[in-house]
Structures are given as C-alpha cells and as structure tokens.
C-alpha cells in the first residue's frame, strides 16, 4: 500500500507538490506552517480592509472604496488586488487591543499575551520553535528582514529567538553567517570541521550536561545548514522566475514575502515579514498611497503563489499590525494610535475565503459586532498549528500560560 501511495504522490508531484509536502502527504497529517505579514506601526483600518464611505470626510479620509470579489463587501481603493482576491482570505474587522504603545502592542499581538511587569512572554514563533522543533534542518522561526524588538523568546531563552535573514531586496542578498567566507571551499571547510570535531572529542565524550549537548546540537545544525544544498536553495531568491519576483514587488516587503514562501516550503515553521512605516501620525494619506499598494501586491501574490503550489491548505497566513489608527484625522493630516478596533486578514490552513468576521461601528472606532481579542487570535494561531493553547510553561518559577483565556475564532475553522 505504501509503495502505491508513494507512486501516486510521485505522480502528483508533477502537478506542483514540492518535496517536503510529498513527504508529509506520505506521512499522514501535514504540518501547518505560518507566515505573518507584520504591518509595523499599525495600519489604518479605514484605508485598508474596513473603509467607511458613509462617514464624514475627517473620518473616512480621501480614499474611496471599491467592491471586492464578494458582493456587498468593499475594501479601500488602495487594495485592488486583495479586493479581487478576497475569495482566498477572511477579514476580521472587529479586532481590538489593549495596548497603545508600539513596543507593548507589538509584543501583545505577536504573542497573543498581554505584556506585564513580571516577565516577558515568548512570541508565537518562539513557542512554535519550542513545541514543534526544527524541520529539515532549517531554523523553525525566521524574521525577515530583521528582528523586531518585539520578536523575542522572552522567558523561553535565546535558543528560541528568531533567525534573521537580512534584506532580501538588496542586491547580492545573502543571509548573514549562512554562507562560507569568500575563498573557502566546501572541501577546506569540511577539513576544518573535522579538526574541530577532533578537538571537541574529549569533552563530547565526557561532558553530558545540557549546555554542552545544546552547543553540539547547534553546531551540527549549523554545519548542516551551511553545507546543505536545500538550505542554501531555500534562501536563494535567484532561483525564482523574474516574473514572479516582479509580481511580489521588488521591495523588502515583496521579496520578503517571497522568501517567506520559499522558507516555509523548505521547512521553516513560522516566517515573519516586517513591513514598516504604517505609523502615520502625519500625512496619513500620502504615506498610505505608497505603502498599502506594496502590501496589496505582496500579500495578494503570496496567496496566489501558495495556492498554485498547493501550499495554501497547509500554511496559515496572517496580515497583522499592532493596532489601528484613530478614526479622526488629526491636525497634521495624520492618524494616531488606535487599539480600539482594527482589521486583520487571515488565510490558509483551512480558513474559508471571502468571509468578513465582525464589524466596527460607523466611525471605525470600536467593534460593533463580534469583538475579537488579541488572545482569541493567539488561541487561533496555536490551534491551527496543532499546539495546545492552554499549555503552561514553568521556566520562571510560576505557571505561565502561552495564552490566557482566548477562544479560537470559530469562523476561521470553516
């Protein structure tokens, strides 16, 4: 039976199944991976997924709304691709946070747990790294292009901090420390690795403590990564067709989203793409006019690309920011921090498309129906990835739940 199945899957591989997906298909229940597109600074709900065309100008702003693939649902005119593609994702319009300062709010939405004075919660990627571990020799948690200060393993310790890629939109992009120094051949590198192993032999044989085992483990992983064709392939955007790279957008966010897809395809469990600039205290419209089209292109292409490769069903995709923006436009033509209500886009991993969950009031200032808390979103993320969201850690001498009292958003489970 096994042979037949593998053959059958082998046939399907021609239809776009990638190698790791094939292995999972053969092994039964597929792993769910996650891509988080992080709109740093907090995107404006009015100018993205929750336009208020009926509201007065000082609230609705200057952008108009456009119909989407779902009759009756409108997005901002700045998101034409997402509007057309709405059948592939859901939008929560009644998300709210309780933190209005960037640092805390980012940590909150990136971990599903409210920051406190006692200890630092690990973020999703760190919990996932700890619970699910690495796959195919790749780091489980990767941040593109850099580590945001919120992206921290906190009480789990630095071993679960993210791996950082650098900016994939840069010319001659290569991941920090991942490639051998210029002039060092694989053969010479293997030689010195053998020498290192010989120098370490005594200690490896006679020291059994966790710290030494941990160092040994990460060195082996590091050598695997450096010498593995697959890993280098995963980070190599040059292998992507020019046309697809253009479709994603030739910028950090676009190439970052593409890199995230490649990484998840190869075994990374959570890839976060940080897209900055949404903190529009001044000149909201001018900023969003350039920023949101970048998001529109990257996010929409990502969903297309994932679907084409048969990966959408096994990849949870979220577009989040730390909060929304004030309903009223301020004196500097900007919008300030607004945790009262904002929108989140979610796709993949069984999330139905074309669905609007909850709603905000007429000003886009507070949830009107079905408020969704940051904790609820957290419970949803963990449940999608097969992690028990009631799990507790005791690393700081007290029980710390990875999620407190969140309820998975049932509409996202089809």
């Amino acid at each position, binding site marked *: 039976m096994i042979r037949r199945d593998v053959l059958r899957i082998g046939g399907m591989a021609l239809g776009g199944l990638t190698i790791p997906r094939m292995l999972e298909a053969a092994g039964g229940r597929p792993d769910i991976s996650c891509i988080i597109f992080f709109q740093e600074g907090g995107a404006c709900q009015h100018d993205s997924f929750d336009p208020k065309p009926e509201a007065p100008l000082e609230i609705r702003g200057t952008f108009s709304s456009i119909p989407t693939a779902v009759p009756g649902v409108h997005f901002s005119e700045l998101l034409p691709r997402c509007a057309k593609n709405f059948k592939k994702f859901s939008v929560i319009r009644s998300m709210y946070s309780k933190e209005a300062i960037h640092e805390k709010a980012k940590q909150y939405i990136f971990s599903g747990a409210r920051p406190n004075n006692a200890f630092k919660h690990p973020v999703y990627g760190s919990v996932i790294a700890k619970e699910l571990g690495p796959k195919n020799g790749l780091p489980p948690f990767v941040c593109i292009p850099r580590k945001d200060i919120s992206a921290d393993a906190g009480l789990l310790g630095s071993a679960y901090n993210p791996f950082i890629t650098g900016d994939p939109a840069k010319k001659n992009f290569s991941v920090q420390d991942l490639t051998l120094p210029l002039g060092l051949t694989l053969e010479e590198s293997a030689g010195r690795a053998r020498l290192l192993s010989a120098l370490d032999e005594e200690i490896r044989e006679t020291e059994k403590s966790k*710290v030494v085992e941990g160092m040994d483990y990460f060195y082996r992983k590091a050598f695997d990564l450096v010498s593995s064709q697959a890993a280098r392939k995963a980070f190599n955007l040059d292998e992507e067709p020019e046309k697809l790279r253009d479709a994603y957008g030739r910028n950090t966010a676009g190439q970052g989203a593409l890199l995230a897809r490649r990484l998840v395809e190869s075994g990374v469990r959570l890839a976060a793409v940080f897209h900055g600039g949404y903190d529009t205290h001044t000149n909201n419209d001018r900023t969003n006019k350039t920023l949101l089209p970048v998001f529109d292109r990257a996010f929409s292409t990502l969903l297309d690309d994932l679907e084409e490769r048969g990966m959408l069903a096994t990849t949870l995709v979220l577009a989040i920011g730390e909060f929304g923006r004030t309903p009223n436009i301020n004196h500097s033509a900007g919008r300030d921090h607004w945790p009262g209500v904002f929108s989140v886009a979610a796709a993949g991993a069984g999330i139905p498309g074309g669905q609007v969950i909850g709603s905000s009031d007429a000003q886009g200032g507070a949830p009107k129906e079905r408020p969704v808390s940051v904790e609820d979103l957290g419970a949803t993320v963990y449940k999608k990835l097969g992690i028990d969201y009631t799990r507790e850690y005791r690393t700081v001498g007290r029980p710390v739940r990875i999620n407190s009292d969140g309820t998975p958003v049932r509409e996202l489970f089809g």
Partner: protein
Amino acid sequence: MLKRAISALVLVLPLPAAAGDAVLLDPPGIVLAGPGAAQRLLVRRMDDAGEISDTASACQLSSTRPEIVEIQGTSVRAVAPGESVIAANCEGSVTGATVKVAAAGVPVEISFPRDVVSILTTKACNSSACHGSPAGQSGFKLSLYGSDPAADFKMIVEGHGGRRVNRADPQQSLLLRKPSFQVPHGGGHLFTKQADEYQTILNWLAQGARPSSGGPRILSIELYPKERIFATPGGKQPVVVVGRLSDGSTRDMTAEVRYSVNDEAVVSAVSNGAVTAKGRGLTVVMARGVGKTATAQMIVVDRASASRTTTPASDSFIDRQAFAKLRRVKLAPFPVTSDSAFLRRVYLDAVGVLPTTQETERFLGSSEPAKRAQLIDRLLERPEYVSHWLMKFEDWFRNSQYYSQGRTNASFKRYLAALIREDRPFDQAAREMITATGDTTVHPAGNFWHPAMDFMLKTFEVSKATPTVTRLFLGQRIECAECHNHPLENLTQEDFYGMAAFFARLRVKHGYAQYRRIWYNAREGEVLHPASKQAAPPKFLDGGVPQIAEGQDRREVLAEWITRTQTMQFARTAANRIWAEYFGAGIVEPADDFRSTNMPTHPELLDGLAKAFIEAGFRFKPLHRLILNSQVYQLSSRAPGRPGGADPLEKLLLARYEPRKLPAEVLLDAIVQVTGVPQEFTGYPPGTSPKDLVASIGATYFLTTFGVPRRDIMESRSQEPSLSQALHLMNSDAVREKIEKPGNILGQLIERTVNDREVLDALYLRAYSRKATPAQWQAVESYLASEKEAGRGRRRMFENVLWAILNSKEFQLNQ
C-alpha cells in the same frame, strides 16, 4: 455537637540515646487540643555517620503514663491533664519526649479560617481549576488555596443573596447541598452526609456561621520529615503536617492540607499519607492549607553501591555543609581540579579574562603550597574584577539605555563601579539608592529608579518600583501580587500595595535637557488599592506596620527595615546572587526567587554565607574569597572514567563544578586576547572591552547574539546556546577578520618558530591555559599534513586551526 477540648502540652526532650544509632522523633514541640486530639509522629533512625535508614518499622513507641497520653499506632493521643514521656525504641536505640498535659477543656467552636477553609483546600474547591480561579466558578469565587479567609467568608455568607448559608436550617445550606451532591454540582460529589467534612461545616453553620471563633489562628504549618533521602526506589515515607497556632498549641493537619510534588519522576504524589521513591533525583513535596504552605525535600539516591562516601577534610564551612549532604546521598564529589583548569576557571569567573601565557607559566611553575589562595587575593584587587562584576551589577540594577535614552547610563555605571572598587558596604549602598533624590547627573544613585519609569510616558510607576526593590534586595518576587494574590505564597494584593505605598510620594521631574532627571518627594500622595479604591497605608511585607514621622521620607523607613530588620534575608539575597555567578545556579534558584515553596538546596550553607557577609560588614570581597577558596568551588567538572553532567544531582548537590558558557562580553574579550586583534567599537578608543561600553544595546551583532541583555526587564541573562551563535562564530566576518589579520598572534608565532607543535602549544596556552594533549597534537599534526598535501600554506592551515580552537567547546566554556 460541640467538641470538648483539653489543652495538652507535649514537650519533646531528647533523652540520651544508646551508642551507635540515633533515633529521630518528629515533629518537635507538639501541643494537642481537644479530647482525643491526636498527632501523628514520625520515627526514623540515623547511624553514627549521619545516614538515616530507610526502615523504622522495628521501632516501638511507648508512653510512661498512658493515662495522660496514650499511643495509638504511630500517633499520640491526649487523655487527661498531666505529664508523660513518649519513648521511641529502635532495637535498643532510644529517644524520648516529655509530655505535659495541662488544664481541662473549654468548648471549642469551629473556626472558619482554621476548619472550614481547610476543607475547601483539601477538597480543591479553592484550586485554580475551580472556584479559586481568578474568575471563580459559576459565580462562586474563593481565594486561591484559602489565602484570604475574610473574602471567602464574605463570599460564602453574603454572596449569592445569602443563599449559600441557611442559619435556620443549616442542612439546607447550598454550602452543604452542593458538595454532597444533593443538588447538581459541576465539581462533583465531594463528600457524603456522613463524612467528617460535612459534620464540621454543619457544626460551623449551627454555631451561627461566624467569621472567626476568636479562638487561636494557625500561624504556620510544617511538613515532616523536612529532608528524606531514599537509598532505592520503592521506599515509602509517610509525611506529617503540624500546624502552629497563635495560642502556642499545635494541630495535626496531615489530613487537612493539599499535597503536591514538583517532580513526580523522583517521588510519587502523596497517596495514603505517604510518598514512594521512584527515581534518582531531588524534588520538593509541598503542603498547602489555610493559606499557608510548607515544603520538604526528597532525594532518591538509587545507587547500587551501599558503601559509605568519603569526602575530603576541610575547615571551610562551605565544604563541610556541601560534603555532609553528599555523604548523606552517597554521592562522591569529583576530585579537586588541576592547577591549569583552576587557573583558567578562576580568571574567567572572578575577573572575566583569560590568564596571559606568562601568568599561566608562572602559576603552573610555582611550587608554593598556598598559590591558589594568593592568586585569588591578587585577582580580587585587579581592575578587571571591577569591570567584570560591574557587568553583572548593571544586569541586576538594569542600567538600561531603554529607560534613559542612553544619557545617564554612564553616571550610574560610574556609581556602581565605585561601589565595587571600594567594596562599599552593600547595606549602605542599598539605603542610598532606595532613598535617592536629586538630579541624577549629580546624585547618580537616583538612576536606580529609572527602571521604575514608564519608558514612553516618562512617568514614575509605583507598580514597577515595588517589585524592583523587593526582588533586588530581598529576593522576593511580588510582581504577580500587583494583579492577584500570589498563587503559591501567602502574599496578597494588600501586601503589594502596602509595599507600594512607600513609594507613593516619589516623583520625577525632567530637567532642561531631555535626559536630566530629578527625583524628589512630594508632600502628599497615596497609592490606591485597585479593588477598594482606598489609599493603601504603608505596610511591610511581613505585615508589620511602620512608624513614620510627620514629613519623613517613607522610603527611609523602608530602607531601614530592609537592611536593619530583614538583615538576614537581605544578606542571603546578596550572597545567593554571588554564589549563583560562581556555581551556575543559586542555593535558591532562581537566585531572586525566595519563597517558602522554593526551598534552598543547602539552607545552612546559605545562612552561613549570609552571616559571613554580615560579619564582613556587607562587603563583597570577603565573600568572594570565601567561595573561591572552598574546595567545592575548586572541584573538577569531570574525572577519568566519570563523565560529568549525566546526573542532575551533581549540579544540585555541588558534587562538581558545572561548566557554563562564557558571557558574551567575556567571550569576545577572550577572542581578542587569543588572536591579539582588538575589537573596535564606534566612538570608543581602541582596546575598549565590551564591558566598558555605556549602554551596550545594539553594540554589535556578536554581543546581542551571545546574550547581552537589553536590561529592560528583570530576567537573568540568557546563557543558552543557539543556532545563530554557532553560525556567527563559524562564518562571520567579525571573527574571520581577527583570525586572518596580518600581524595578529598567528603572524607573530609563525614568524617566531618553524616548529608546528610550538605554534600549537602557544595557541593552546592562550586559549585553554594548557598545552595540547598527545592525542590533540596528533589530530592537528595529521590535519596539517593533509592540508599541506592539498597545497595550502602554513599560515592558512594555522588560520583553520585557530578557527577550530575558537569554535571549540572548551574555548567557549568555563569548566
């Protein structure tokens, strides 16, 4: 039905035991109450080497005057006023206790906090999964494990429109009908109408359901045996809990508490009043009742060898305490380490640098018997001692760029450095910081308060100040009590806001430049308790009420209390922090998490260190000297035929030196030392050590990757290995440039000699404070031969050797 009580006083006095084995009788100091009031006893035997035997079944209990106190199995029971002696006879070895039974009884009321709350605890009604959860359960909320009997009383008697309690017809009270399942109860059927629990609650209701009988309160509970060492799995140990009451009497609470075991792989959960040994290790059994907790340490040795363990003689109390415990668990300490291993270890631990080749050769060549002690004295006077411990002080005191935008970190750094350099009495420094006022650029002690500021709003927050002070100086984490009563401790929100009130009048002003901060006391101002919205009066953590004169700075009173009243705890906290740096873990671990449910592994040792610290006038250097000169500090990590680290007891019980990764700054300095290529930091002169950076945040990728903390939160720095660390040491330009720089140490060595072995030994001496073993030389020799064959030059080959050394575990570890 009212109980008739007799106060019975049992005084336990040791009688001379027979030669050889000693007999231990626990708990001490029992005072019984009520007719037929009983107390379970524990009898154990200890041989002349201090080993406590597993079986006490051969022991007999007897009472000289059974008409006063009678024996029932393993319990004593008061019969009438008078005196009796209880003797425990174990095959000829005897110990005893004089028993005095006084005064005839008075009627005893059922006490709500003592009797009713006990039942709520043993039946888990007030556990976090049930009515003890922050939100309660089905509208009925109890304090977690009975920590707040007054609130529980209110909830039971007044809550739910008073329907939980029916004084006219007590049997109809919901408080009884629910747990006995006469009406549906989500928590199930907890006891029958015939059970003692039902009767006790019924009696309390019949007596009028009063908040307190006015009778004695339970002050503390104790769990016996306090330490139990099992030779093999399968051994059983009954546990006994005694409560100490405010009238001096005791109460057998063995069946009135809830037990939990931290690690059930070591001993089983408490079942039928006993734990069963399961596997090698150390764990803690905890008993909780009426808002009080008690703990006992359980060790399972599980080693086939029954032979006695011998330990070296020593006149250090550190060694005596640690070795006595090792003998009891039959775990032999590793031998004292070699001179070269000691040298590298003590340099890295005490001053955070590697010994130079010259220093190594001088030390290894010396035959002076006291050379280790002399080296320790010299090291403690070096400037690197200051910068190394400054790095740790900056971690503890969170000298973070995050709070002051990097502007005042330098002044605080200088302040802490002077404190360490001059070895100023720490109690004095603590008082200075806690009471600091003024402009932080002139009075740097005020920087102490920066972590208590809201980073964005630039306001002072008492909720941050309170845990900072208690954690730093008393090793107590009370931050959880800001939002809820401490789940494991008898620590409430009242306690938190009582402490917070000491900071209620502290204010901060921002000077003409954004970075200038001025701390001052306002004339008035109170902290409001979040529930009552009333001003919380200042109250010490132990419940004491401070005397504060009109116009006096409340912080002054607090600082006095911390350093002059809580002297031992203040000293324990400081000593434990230093200890943790040298041993990789505190005697209480985490080092700033003292609580009754987090036992020290070696309580007497910790107290000894604290006393030594106090006697030394709260100066750190004598403490360092004491620790570094102990044999326990100087033990090997491994021995021939005996790998280290496989057994978790080795670390917990101090049987060896636990290897650990070098901190980021120390590792970078070590790489600089070995390669001879200084690290450059923008804006600093050449030769700057990363420890000298002011607010090192974002200094280099190297430092953050290897765990330099942001110092914005109170977590200890992470010393865990990671993938990014391995990749960075292996492949980064930062490290490669040091290896390849012309004229670096490699360049000099290769120029100096054509002898490859000499080059290798010189590198080894620099990196490891020793020469290469024959096996290592052989490995390198054959590597060099094959590289030569591949056509690589001598310099290039040695660059790869140096790369391997810097990436080796031995280099990255202190061991």
